[in-house]
């Protein structure tokens, strides 16, 4: 579904991604782990188009999307979440998701009918919010949500566009134990519907969700394969897993 070939990116002399290639099959969850500053977020930015790559190619469903802008990639089916929550603070929770569904539905150059009363969009948004467990917070202002609720809203916004591929940048960041566990359950369910590239520090999540695991260190993938194999890879252990286990 998603294929990345030889992606590179430098900030000045700092090479943040160095010839990264990976592929994501249908209904696959590919986890990326790595120490802080390894370049995980940069990679997600490159794939989603938020950052331009210096070299390399991104293909979505066989189509080369490297030359497309951020919004064109989203329209092509590439959804993502942000490590640092990015929502529309002055909008209600429902409207945050409804406007994401609106992008998918089209017709955003309409100037007269009140969007907030658009039943099709609201129903679609409500369905997604119910799924992530925010059904009883739909009328709240997004700015008033707790951190845990914001992480769920972030995910709901991405899901509302019905993406073909989902890029998740540390969805568990800052969540408590129970919240993480609930989110892992939800992602396990979603995994069957949409292939995902999952950047995550939480090892429980990674080993529970991932079909494949890549270890990113200093912008390079130093090990990649089924999680159990990578776990036993001496290079990966030394670079990263050793510090955790």
């Amino acid at each position, binding site marked *: 579904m998603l294929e990345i070939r030889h992606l590179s990116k430098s900030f000045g002399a700092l090479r943040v991604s160095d010839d990264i290639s990976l592929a994501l099959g249908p209904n696959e969850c590919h986890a990326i782990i790595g120490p802080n500053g390894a370049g995980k977020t940069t990679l997600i930015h490159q794939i989603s188009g938020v950052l331009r790559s210096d070299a390399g190619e991104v293909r979505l469903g066989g189509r080369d999307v490297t030359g497309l802008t*951020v919004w064109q990639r989203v329209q092509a089916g590439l959804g993502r979440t942000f490590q640092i929550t990015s929502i*529309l603070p*002055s909008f209600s929770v429902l409207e945050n998701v409804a*406007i994401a569904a609106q*992008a998918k539905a089209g017709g955003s150059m309409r*100037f007269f*009918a*009140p969007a907030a009363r*658009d039943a099709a969009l609201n129903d679609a948004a409500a369905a997604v919010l119910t799924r992530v467990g925010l059904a009883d917070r739909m009328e709240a202002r997004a700015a008033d949500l707790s951190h845990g609720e914001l992480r769920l809203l972030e995910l709901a916004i991405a899901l509302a566009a019905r993406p073909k591929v989902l890029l998740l940048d540390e969805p568990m960041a800052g969540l408590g134990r129970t919240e993480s566990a609930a989110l892992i359950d939800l992602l396990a369910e979603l995994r069957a519907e949409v292939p995902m590239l999952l950047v995550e520090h939480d090892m429980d999540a990674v080993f529970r969700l991932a079909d494949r695991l890549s270890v990113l260190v200093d912008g390079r993938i130093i090990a990649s394969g089924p999680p159990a194999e990578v776990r036993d890879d001496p290079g990966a252990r030394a670079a990263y897993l050793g510090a955790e286990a």
Partner: protein
Amino acid sequence: MARDRMIGAAIFATLLALPLLLPLVGADYLMGLLIKAMLLAIAAISLDLIIGQGGMVSLGHAAFIGVGAYTAAIALESGIEEILILLALTLAVTALVALITGALALRTSGVYFLMITLAFGQMIYFTFTSLAAYGGDDGLTLWSLATLFGSDVVQNGEGLYFFVLATLLATWAGVHRIGLSRFGRVLRAARDNPQRAEVMGYPITRYRLVAYVIAACIAGVSGLLMMQYAEFVSPAIATWQRSGDLIVAVVLGGLGTRNGALLGAFFIVLMEEILSSLLHEWRLIYGPLLVILVLYAKGGLADLMAPRAKGAG
């Protein structure tokens, strides 16, 4: 929400009733003052679409008033008198100018957007001063005015008053509706969090440009009507100070609120009139007054009249 609408309805009911209630003595003067306030309010409401809803602070909005006024004046001079045709011409020319300047200005944002809109505004202003055939610096007195279906109803005080009032009402209701529409929602999303709006799949520059053009067109219409009211057009209509006045009206009234720009514009026109009749050095009072209002009425005049419940949006 409902309260905002009631206040708006009350304002318009008052504006509608005033000409009927005014005593004959002094009516011309008051009516002129109200027409001036309504014309400023039309432009201010249009500016609020880009500042309040779009988060784009333009310091060149008065230039579009000028484009509208000059387009209409030049067309009048060349013999076109029907106001509906003049309106169409004004809309077309303002839209074109806004499309070109907007497309360039929107490559920037924040303070750079402010500077570039100021620069375009000044370019347009100096273009007017160099129109020697149309009075140059001194401006142009119009010997004929626009007609509506051949009749002169939109030339005299009362007819023009109601025509302006109708335009103001259409602007007030229309801009509000745009804000609530699918389009307006995207515009507000791009203001709230541009990156998020893009990662939702929206080409935000395109939406901003459309808003910019719509706002410019409305300002252009107010320019046409200003020309018709003053029977005169000069580059002074398009100075950057006038763009500044419009920003003051919008901010003072309450950014992105239903009645804010309307109240702000009326406040400015009335204050200027009252203070300047009391005192020659009236700006010495006007300045501090604005400071106090901005400091102590953060939500603007609209908020003073209908304070929002805490926490509600």
